[in-house]
């Protein structure tokens, strides 16, 4: 079945402060959606809410994966439905190797088909090669002492190994030099198919030159203020966000 993510009238609060106030979005397998917006507008809030971070409270609305409402589900359940979030700030975990962690994740996602160790290592090696990652990476403790760029690559490596149906990439390009952006973008493009929908969150259009989005949405004032095709990203690059505040919703303009 072609994956589908639908966000309906989503309201989200942190500590009783409303950050998102009625977000609507629909993503299907094979599509790349870019979510853009200035810093602090709630992009990461949206991503974390999708994944089920316990701090973010959904006060209204629905999140549907293949038609099933996932609000209230634990993050691991969501992951098992095929959702994946490449986090803006990945955690460091001392004492747990990246390889061991990923293997545990693969086992958790597919308990009915436990992957033999050798097969897992083959998969891991192949994906590390795709992303131009050093072989010793898997033996290092998860993100511990990783540079910003290495952490981001590790997020994409995890995506590549776990093969999600719906991937949300939160600021995956920040902290990467241009070569690394290309490698990561190439990784995403290689994995993209009818069986995977992608949401790329960025406040910076650079990565969108390498992963062309089918749709661009601008998050402002807790809502999707404007949606359009890839040309919208170019327009943002040229004109910034202020024009949207006036054109799309005069109430947002100061």
């Amino acid at each position, binding site marked *: 079945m072609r994956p589908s993510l639908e966000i309906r009238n989503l309201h989200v609060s942190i500590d009783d402060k409303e950050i998102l106030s009625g977000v609507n979005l629909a993503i299907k397998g094979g599509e790349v959606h870019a979510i853009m917006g200035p810093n602090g507008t709630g992009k990461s809030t949206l991503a974390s809410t999708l994944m089920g971070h*316990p701090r973010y409270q959904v006060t209204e609305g629905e999140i549907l994966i293949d038609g099933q409402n996932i609000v209230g589900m634990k993050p691991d359940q969501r992951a098992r439905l095929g959702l994946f979030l490449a986090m803006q700030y990945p*955690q460091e975990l*001392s*004492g747990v190797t990246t390889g061991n962690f*990923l293997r*545990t*994740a693969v086992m*958790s*996602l597919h308990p009915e088909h436990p992957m033999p160790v050798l097969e897992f290592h083959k998969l891991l090696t192949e994906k590390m090669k795709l992303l131009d990652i050093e072989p010793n990476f898997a033996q290092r403790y998860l993100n511990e002492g990783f540079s910003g760029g290495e952490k981001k690559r590790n997020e994409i490596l995890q995506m590549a190994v*776990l093969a999600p149906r719906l991937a949300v990439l939160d600021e995956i390009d920040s902290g990467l030099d241009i070569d690394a952006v290309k490698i990561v973008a190439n990784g995403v493009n290689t994995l993209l198919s009818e069986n995977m929908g992608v949401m790329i969150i960025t406040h910076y259009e650079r990565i969108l030159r390498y992963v062309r989005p089918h749709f661009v949405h601008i998050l402002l004032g807790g809502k999707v203020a404007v949606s359009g095709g890839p040309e919208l990203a170019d327009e943002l690059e040229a004109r910034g966000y202020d024009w949207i505040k006036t054109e799309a919703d005069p109430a947002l303009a100061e």
Partner: protein
Amino acid sequence: MAQTLVHNAYVEACRKRGEPAWLVGRRADAWQAASDLALPKLEKTIIERWGLEKVLPGTAPTEGTPLSRDSKAGASLVTVNGWEQDAHIDQALRTQGVLLMSLERAVAEHPEIVEPYLLTRPLAPDHLLAALHRTYLQGGHLLYVPAGVEIDLPVEMVSALGGQDAYPHTLVVLERGARATLVHTELSIDESPIGVNSAVEAYLGEGAFLRYAVVQKLASQVRAFQPRLAHLDRDARIEWIVVQAGGGRVVTTNQTLLEGEGASAESYAVFLGAGHQILDFQTKMNHLASHTTSDIDSKGVMTDEAKAAYTGFTEIRKGAHGCASWQKEKTLMLSDSCRVDLIPALWIYDDDVQKAGHAAAAGQVNPEQLYYLMSRGIRQKDALLLLVTGFLATILDRIPLAQIRDQIAELAKETIAR
């Protein structure tokens, strides 16, 4: 009064079994002293109602259910309530004079080795429980490694307890330059709520090396007092690996007396607490001679309603120059209702110290880390296990015995799953 009757009957039984006069005499002296002694005063744990002073020795050998031993070990010994059930020692080791047998047999067959050590030194600061151990010690183990003999493979010792109170005593003697690794497992053969007063005494001669790994996984209703004590002669070295997971109410001290110049001790300890377990765990290093070093690294994982008081104690005695010591203790608390008191103590009486210090920290699971793991599809229990494994890694990395690392992982899993 009742105690005295039991006591007299017990001593009589010992005499009847043909115990040598020196041992009966040592028991009698300890009993004499006991009447003036009180329970140990512990800083954070109230043991007055545990009934440890009422623990009594059994009077007859236990017929054990056969326990399997590790067939790969060059030497292994299984006891049930201190009585020898199975002992095996490779011919090569035997020829070199290595002894591994129950203490009972050692007392009868090798008094020349046992008598100079057994109960010749205080077990702990003088208190009632130590005196009772000296009075009643029954059965147990002897590992003896003659001078210069090196045992490559770990020596296995299994101490199985159940059905009755127990007073097993483990004596380890490594003569000058001897080397050995001893893996000592303490387990229950049933769920009986027994009392245990077990002690370990190790004597390391000049330049000897002992890696002593103990895995205590007694049943959850067991009350236990468990002093473990090592005496180190000049340039001797001990590496403790203490895994303290079992028992319902447990007091344990793990003490190294650095008596000879240049002696050194490392201690890696893992304690695990779940359910309603109460644990008082002490690691003690006494620098009694110059240029001695000690290093303590302890980690605890607690959950449910479990309570632990952990004391890291280092003493550098006046006149012991140029010593170095370090202690680290860290706990991870998985529940809101567990409790840990960390009590680091440094007593430095000499002015010429090379290094001394401590670091203590009690922490909880980082919810962001848990979320990160779960976001990859890992179930909460498995995610916690990964976090616990990661937490223990600095200690696991120091343990060269895969079987112990696996056991810790297994016990950690049980702790989380409870």
